[in-house]
């Protein structure tokens, strides 16, 4: 019964979700004014028609551009802001392209931000560092293969365990079975 609706909160969740769909990310985040709206927004998945370009300059200094979300070459002197923001969006956002550059070896906090960004779905990922190559274990690589179509990644994967080799074997066998099934 909408006859007495005076507040947005009088609308049922299905309608609120529809309204969220029409909002850009920034407006949707601003609508988290209440526990119910916060919960609804946190369960939404976004496919943003944009590129993420993140440049780690120093330990706590980064420049981010997500032009179509209203963030253009914005400098962050405290990257914990990015960590908190990306954590909220992790596993829920799809974009066209992610481009990450690190001027030096990523520190612990930068690595956490990278890990969050690597859970985004994307057509293309480029990770480039001017420091030593980052170490990466197999599970995140497999997760990346699931999330991203094209990956350009300079990294060292030197900690393969017997279990990892079994996983690689299983992935290869499944891929061959898939090819045979599809007659590729």
């Amino acid at each position, binding site marked *: 019964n909408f006859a007495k609706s005076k507040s947005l909160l009088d609308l049922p969740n299905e309608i609120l979700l529809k309204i969220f*769909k*029409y909002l850009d*990310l*920034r407006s949707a985040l*601003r609508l988290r004014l*209440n526990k119910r709206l916060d919960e609804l927004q946190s369960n939404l998945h976004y496919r943003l028609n944009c590129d993420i370009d993140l440049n780690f300059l120093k330990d706590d200094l980064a420049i*981010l551009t997500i032009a*179509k979300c209203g963030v253009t070459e914005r400098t962050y002197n405290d990257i914990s*802001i990015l960590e908190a923001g990306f954590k909220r969006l992790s596993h829920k956002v799809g974009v066209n392209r992610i481009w990450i550059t690190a001027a030096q070896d990523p520190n612990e906090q930068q690595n956490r931000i990278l890990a969050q960004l690597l859970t985004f779905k994307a057509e293309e990922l480029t990770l480039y560092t001017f420091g030593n190559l980052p170490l990466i274990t197999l599970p995140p690589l497999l997760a990346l293969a699931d999330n991203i179509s094209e990956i350009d990644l300079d990294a060292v994967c030197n900690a393969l365990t017997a279990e990892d080799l079994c996983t690689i074997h299983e992935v290869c066998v499944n891929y061959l079975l898939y090819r045979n099934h599809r007659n590729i």
Partner: protein
Amino acid sequence: PNVKLVTSDNEEFVVDFRIAKMSVTVSRLMEAMNMSETDDASLLSNSIPLPNVTKAVMARVIEWCEKHKNDEPKEEKENDKRGRTTHVVSDWDKEFLKNDEFGRLCQLMGAANYLEIKGLFNDISQTIANMIHGKKSDEIAEMFNIHCDLTEAEKKEIRKKTAWCED
């Protein structure tokens, strides 16, 4: 041929068959009641009860349907340049909805949802989204009468998680 629609306050509206068919709910009911365009007797002897729609709201719904009865189905554009779904609200629709305060928009939206008139529902959803777009959180809360039940700690946490995209 005409179809009779009866609202929750027992007002009868006689509408063109084409207009009645714009509502998926009414279409289904007509089908269930064996009412067909070519069978005048079935249309004359039956009326469609709509217990969730009042006379005032039904009049608005019919006004919208009259204007759109010859429209081609409209496609929603998924992921525009800002990554959101967009629905183009025509100038006539903007004019039609512009003087509705939020309560009336909600009633109309509820009717469009119940009657399953997608075009009208999308028009109103997009209109509400346009009202939200570009506003600050406190302006949105005031405009839509949103009671905040968040604790100070929760508010702080939310501010922290949205700071990256705020000016």
